[in-house]
């Protein structure tokens, strides 16, 4: 598959702060590529460079073969960019915002309306409401509609689901899958590790560096160490006790259980018995599949 975005050795500093360090990856055309990382990882800097709003200190980035620093004029019509902060005009109505963005790109709203119809139809009830008066979920749908109105080849989404509840987040990812089927390439960033599984490929970004790039499944296989889920009647004492057990490399909370990263020699049955002897009730330790979040915790600790 052709790559639509190619990034080579991208580096950007703000004074003494490193925002991006030697970042290299490419995004295959027609795929959803996820940039997974916490606040401060460098995600927004990367987006600003790709959206031609910021120039890198070193390295190159091309989108559809066009250089982001030199060929930004041609490039801008190929990109739909949805920044993290609300990017619309709050004093314009829903319809006015959509028409404004269409006219910026020299298209009519009806030209590509098929693309946004499933998203925009949910706003159809209030065409004359000011954008600033919309709820969070509706603002997000309007911003996405405006970013798509000129039918870009690539959609750049910077943390579209931050602060959004789990049901709306899931709906949003459903919309992205539909857009991919219509041939749009999507680069999306998130700090929710569970969203990684909805991407074709992901890059884990931490403090300006890439910790790993692959499909979500192949990336989680890299954890290497045996992983167990542990539970007991009292979870906090269990956490403290497990950290003192032999062959336990790391232990941290993970939803309703604790995750135990173990050495090969770890004995789950023996550990259960030992914990019971310490007075913990209902102790259970069983092997479990790793997730992206487990991998991120491990790789980020290596960096520290």
């Amino acid at each position, binding site marked *: 598959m052709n790559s639509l975005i190619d990034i080579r050795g991208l580096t950007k500093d703000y004074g003494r702060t490193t925002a991006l360090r030697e970042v290299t990856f490419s995004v295959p055309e027609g795929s959803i590529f996820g940039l997974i*990382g*916490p*606040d*401060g*990882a460098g995600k927004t800097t990367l987006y600003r460079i790709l959206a031609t709003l910021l120039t890198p200190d070193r390295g190159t980035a091309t989108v559809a073969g066009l250089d982001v620093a030199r060929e930004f004029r041609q490039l801008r019509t190929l990109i739909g960019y949805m920044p993290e902060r609300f990017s619309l005009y709050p004093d314009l109505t829903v319809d006015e915002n959509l028409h404004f963005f269409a006219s910026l790109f020299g298209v009519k709203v009806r030209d590509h309306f098929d693309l946004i119809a499933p998203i925009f139809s949910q706003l159809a009830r209030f065409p004359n409401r000011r954008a600033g008066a919309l*709820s*969070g*979920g*509706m603002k997000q749908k309007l911003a996405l509609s405006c970013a798509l109105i000129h039918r870009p080849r690539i959609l750049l989404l910077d*943390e579209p689901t*931050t*602060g*959004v*509840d*789990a*049901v*709306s*987040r*899931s709906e949003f990812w459903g919309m992205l899958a539909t857009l991919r089927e219509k041939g749009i390439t999507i680069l999306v960033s998130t*700090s*929710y*590790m*569970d969203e990684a599984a909805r991407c074709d490929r992901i890059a884990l970004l*931490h403090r300006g560096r890439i910790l790993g790039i692959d499909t979500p499944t192949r990336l989680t296989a890299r954890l290497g160490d045996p992983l167990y889920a542990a539970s007991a009647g009292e*979870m*906090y004492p269990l*956490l403290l006790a497990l950290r003192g057990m032999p062959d336990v490399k790391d232990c*941290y*909370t*993970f*939803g*309703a259980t604790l995750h135990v990263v173990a050495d090969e020699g770890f004995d789950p049955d023996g550990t259960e018995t030992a914990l019971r002897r310490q007075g913990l009730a209902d102790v259970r330790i069983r092997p479990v599949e790793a997730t992206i*979040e487990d991998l*991120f*915790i491990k790789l*980020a*600790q290596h960096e520290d």
Partner: protein
Amino acid sequence: MKTSENVISVRHLTKRFGDFTAVDDLSLDVRKGEIFGFLGANGAGKTTAMRMLCGLSRPTSGSGTVAGFDIVRQPEDIKRHIGYMSQKFSLYGQLTVRENLTLFATIYGMPASDIRRKADEACRALGMDGVRDRPVRDLPLGWKQRLAFTAATLHTPDIVFLDEPTGGVDPATRRKFWEMIYRASSEGMTLFVTTHYLDEAEYCHRVSIMVDGRIRALDSPAGLKQQFRAATMDEVFRIVAQDARRT
């Protein structure tokens, strides 16, 4: 359960803005030392409910107490006996670590004689002695967050309200933060937490889920999973919140 053990006890709280009912007939008890997860879809009314509980907004109708004070008649007393932290705004970036601690302790009405000593102790406990005179804006996000929690709890409130305290934070830091919550709870503090991370809902003693201004589900995570025949809190949330009309 005796009422004296409830740090929050409210009945039929309702808040209307014009013809819009943001919070509709909210009744709730939260026990001392409990980690209470306050979940809900966007627009469900969580923020409005929390503002009433913190004494920042007067209910249209209903009654109750928070930290032993009446939410209608004694909102100023409530403000001094709670702590509040949100991810969006909790510290002054241009002030130093120590100045932030001192400022918040003063605002919460701590005696001046205690503030110095407690602030020094806190810097040590946080491992921030070396940076105590540095502006907070220079600190890594995870440090800021732990500092914000300490600033909100230095005056040892009965209850601390945490509004999405871990948004955008990396997974390891998020977990360190929850260990602070566990510790505070084991020392008897009550924690009232909102979050969009549903794995964090599993760490709470009890969880409520708000939909369209009303509490639709309230139980321990295990109880909720059983009630809705779900494997995780994520599934529970989806089942309860799927028919939300406000988004």
